[in-house]
């Protein structure tokens, strides 16, 4: 069996595993949907501020909700990986002719598909609440791809590495709230122009998630900002260049 087939089999396993754990399933989608509804309702008035890019706050919030589905959502993959270590299944896989790389990529691929589906669900809810995607289906798909990749290279890598190092699902779960910080420290709920604090604006500017969120919002509200999309992908690639080799190295350390 070639490596691609092994990766596909393991991705399929990761996908089948997920919905069978109702707690993981519930906690990776429901909080996002609730937050979207609550924050959308609470801050609806923000859309009436002069210069705000849209008069529908749910529309403004939709890209944020996608990131909330993908970035903290990927943390559950780390929990599942730690569980595989705890119950010995990770090492069971290593006794087959499957490479560590295939085990890692299989899980990564499975998680990408899962996150994309979760992000799609959030977007469908936004549309049901009256939001419109200015760039249509292609733009919606591009938003989902960007959100999914950002989740993988940020909190996906952090939670996977923590899972491999600690082999403790509870430890991985404990850091999950940190993922929300990555998103809250962006222009997620309020456009940067309307934020008074200079310090906060600087932090937002330095946050790579902001550079992914901005072009996603453009895709949602106005059109294709190719320069912004390029910067967004550049941020993802730069994070990936650091995160993925580190993760691969830690995966290999399982064979010590």
């Amino acid at each position, binding site marked *: *069996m070639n490596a691609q087939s092994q990766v596909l089999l393991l991705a399929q396993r990761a996908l089948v595993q997920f919905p069978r754990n109702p707690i993981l399933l519930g906690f990776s989608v429901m909080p996002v949907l609730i937050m979207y509804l609550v924050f959308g309702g609470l801050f609806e008035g923000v859309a009436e501020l002069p210069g705000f890019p849209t008069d529908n706050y749910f529309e403004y919030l939709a890209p944020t909700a996608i990131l909330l589905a993908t970035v903290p959502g990927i943390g559950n993959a780390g929990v599942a990986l730690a569980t595989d270590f705890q119950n*010995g*299944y990770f090492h069971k896989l290593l*006794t087959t002719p499957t490479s560590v790389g295939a085990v890692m990529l299989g899980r990564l691929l499975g998680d990408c598909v899962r996150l994309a589906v979760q992000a799609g669900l959030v977007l469908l809810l936004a549309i049901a609440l009256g939001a419109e995607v200015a760039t249509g289906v292609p733009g919606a798909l591009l938003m989902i791809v960007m959100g999914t990749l950002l989740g993988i290279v940020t909190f996906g890598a952090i939670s996977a590495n923590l899972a491999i190092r600690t082999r403790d699902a509870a430890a991985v779960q404990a850091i999950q709230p940190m993922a929300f910080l990555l998103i809250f420290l962006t222009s997620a709920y309020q456009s940067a122009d309307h934020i008074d604090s200079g310090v906060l604006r600087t932090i937002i500017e330095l946050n790579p998630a902001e550079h992914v969120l901005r072009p996603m919002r453009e895709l949602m509200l106005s059109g294709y900002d190719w320069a912004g999309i390029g910067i967004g992908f550049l941020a993802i690639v730069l994070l990936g260049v650091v995160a993925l080799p580190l993760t691969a190295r830690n995966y290999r350390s399982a064979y010590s």
Partner: protein
Amino acid sequence: MTNCSPTAGTARTPLEHLIGPARTQRLESAPPPGDAIVLEDLAKTYPDGTAAVRGISFRVAAGESFGILGPNGAGKSTTIGMLGTLVRPTTGRASVGGFDVLAEPTEVRRRIGFAMQQAGVDDFATPKELMVLQGRLHGLRKHEAAARAELLLGIMELAEEADRRLATLSGGTKRRVDLAASLMHLPPVLFLDEPTEGLDPRSRSGIWDTLDRLRSRLGVTLVLTTHYMEEGDRLCERVAIIDRGTVVAEGAPAALKATVAEDATLEDVYLHYTGRAFEDTRVAA
């Protein structure tokens, strides 16, 4: 007695279905010659400086049932982990089926089954799904893997649990599922790391019976670790008793006991060779 020869008009045995008439005949005629496993001065020191194994050498013949016995912390799991390509040896060499564990780990993995100390199963899968995936990762086609899983589930008396989530099964049943999954590709060598650790006497007895059936029906080379001396005595043709990372005695259980006293046990053998009493929990009858 069941006739396993491929005679036209007679029903095939489950074993013939599983591995085909030719291999069944071969298994039932004579065990293949030569050493299945060779260890030469194999050692492992972990990064924190712990010398878990300090130069172990032994050979296991093809078709043999071999036990690595010793108290917790003696280096048993590290040794079997090195043989199973899960732990990288620091020095020395080992080969399984003629392939070096360090230089050719993938070839070794094609030829081994490994049942983990802690049943290595995915709690969210069913036994059948787990086994099919294991078979497919070993290169079986989907329908082959499904058919083989059915047969092994039958042999291991797991047919009733085949479609239940592993999370709902007992520890002993999970061990048997792990064992069955380890056999999906019909490996010539099977490693078992503490196969009955933590099990109640009834489950332990069930695993022993299963291992007896496997040896008699599949003819695999069996290497197991255990800190239950009576388990080694019951299941193994030869044993290596290890203590603090070195082999202190090796041979057939009866022969080893005879070197100590007429009515000696393997615990007495351990005491004789190490000067210390074997303090691990004795296995319940």
